[in-house]
């Protein structure tokens, strides 16, 4: 069953142009030039219920804008959107009771009160029957390990605990669609993992449709079977994440710091040189060759430091969009 249907969605923002400096300010006071920023430009896709989909793309790509249109926060400039049969920006209460939006770093949980108070409010606002509330609450508290936390003032909780409470608050009404906007941003590695596991479990248990935006490759890797890559407002890729990773991110970057300078030509034998400095160089190495190459380098040279880094989503996406070699030059440690 189709949960979300998007046809030719466009969202343009009018932005005012101003020349720098005082003359520019005066000029723009009298005559303001404006141009359209195409945050989202003719995007179409459908999502079936129960799918776990990731919107991937660099900052400013348009993924959050798309999410905001889907949740009814923004009116599109053009196109048709249907979520659970509703037009999101009409913001009907019936519709809003069926989805949840969780925004990383934006808190819904009341700061000065224990999270439990927020849960009780949500129970009423979302018209959750008493029995269902109790069951869902017990279940989620258990999965998220929040027993000790829900009756402590939110401001006394750690960021990770607060984020888990945010999720709990959002899921009390068992929404059919869950929008997650950068849910793991600012969290430590362990907490990121916890959140990912939880979302996956929630999707498995309740069959909820989950849409996640992130610029962390790891979020998407861990959670999403299907990925929509959005760049500069365009839908660049829609399909299996495996395909994306295999095809476009089958390499890693290795940054090596040597005790004494090494010639660029010597290093070229180990891998493609991305950024060269006599003492510190970044190489691009095929994923499966990383162990051998690092072992070899450590053997052949006096190495002070060796740093292995995953390719950035930005890089992968840029590659997809340009269809050619990505611009490695920016990746310098």
């Amino acid at each position: 069953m189709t949960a979300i249907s998007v046809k030719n969605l466009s969202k343009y923002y009018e932005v005012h142009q101003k020349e720098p400096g005082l003359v520019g300010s005066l000029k723009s006071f009298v005559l303001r030039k404006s141009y359209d920023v195409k945050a989202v430009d003719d995007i179409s896709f459908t999502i079936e219920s129960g799918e776990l989909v990731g919107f991937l793309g660099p900052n400013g790509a348009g993924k959050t804008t798309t999410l905001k249109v889907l949740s009814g926060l923004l009116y599109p400039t053009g196109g048709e959107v249907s979520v659970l049969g509703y037009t999101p920006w009409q913001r009907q209460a019936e519709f809003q009771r069926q989805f949840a939006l969780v925004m990383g770093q934006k808190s819904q949980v009341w700061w000065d009160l224990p999270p439990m108070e927020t849960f009780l409010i949500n129970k009423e606002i979302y018209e959750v029957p008493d029995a269902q509330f109790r069951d869902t609450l017990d279940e989620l508290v258990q999965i998220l390990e929040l027993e000790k936390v829900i009756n402590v003032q939110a401001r006394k909780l750690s960021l990770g605990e607060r984020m888990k409470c945010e999720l709990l608050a959002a899921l009390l009404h068992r929404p059919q669609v869950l929008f997650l906007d950068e849910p793991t941003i600012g969290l430590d590695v362990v907490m990121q993992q916890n959140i990912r596991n939880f979302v996956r479990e929630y999707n498995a248990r309740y069959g909820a449709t989950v849409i996640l935006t992130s610029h962390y490759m790891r979020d998407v890797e861990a959670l999403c079977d299907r990925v929509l890559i959005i760049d500069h407002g365009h839908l660049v890729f829609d399909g299996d994440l495996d395909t994306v990773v295999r095809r476009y991110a089958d390499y890693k970057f290795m940054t090596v710091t040597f005790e004494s300078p090494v010639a660029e030509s010597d290093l070229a034998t180990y891998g493609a040189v991305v950024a060269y400095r006599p003492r510190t160089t970044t190489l691009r190495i095929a994923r499966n060759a990383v162990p051998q190459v690092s072992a070899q380098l450590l053997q052949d040279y006096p190495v002070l430091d060796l740093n292995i880094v995953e390719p950035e989503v930005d890089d992968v996406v840029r590659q997809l969009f340009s269809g050619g070699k990505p611009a490695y030059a920016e990746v310098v440690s």
Partner: protein
Amino acid sequence: MLKSFRKLRAIFLASWQESLMYRAESLVWFIGEAIIPLIMIALWLAAYRTVDRIGEYTVQDMVHYYVMFLVLSNLLTPHLEWNTGEWIRSGAFSAHLVRPFPYQLWQLAVEVAFKGVRVVFLVPMLLLFFLLFGQEMLGGFALRWEIAPILLASMVLSFLLNYCLKLCLGLLAFWVGQTDGIIESYAVVTMFLAGSIIPLDLMPAAVERVTHFLPFRYLYFFQVQLLQGRLDFLSALSALAIQVGWLLVCYLFVQWVFAAGVRRYGAYGG
């Protein structure tokens, strides 16, 4: 109907609890608000050393005026313009828009709940004023029993009217980047036009006339007039009708502003 009540009650109870965390701040705000009336009373007491009557006011009326003004403005003024503007600017407003409950009602429940803490400070403050100006204060009361229901109704209407005005002010954040300056200016201007600084009927005739075309005289001044028995039953009733009219206008206006603002809302903050 019952569902709406439960929702409002839930918000109210949580807000009530939260307001208790701001006891200390509330006291500080209260003290700050009391300063101007105290200064004005001191000023007028000096003025009344040489005259018995200024306009329609005896010295008792005057002291009573400022004390009642303080009480009423404390009870009937919501302060949602600051949070509203802040949330719109930061994008936190999105959480309110996504919720199946109108923001306008949500904040109303919050504001009513926060008045609870204020009331607690009202009593000792009134006692203090009574100790300072006891005799003078009581002399100003002239509330007739038939006016009492009109007074109560006008107080409720005043709160709602004020709420609409303040909400509008906060919603300006949809269009204007920095609303702090506008909010401050509004506060200063309305202080005069509402009668906080000088009784409206003692202002220059031209200014006094202008206040009849604005909603501000119905926020606190109207109520003080009732308390001082300055309006007969029919005048009071017709003034109440005008107040209702203003509430209707402001209500419709704020709904329109809200809808227009949401259309424009860029949901900033990523």
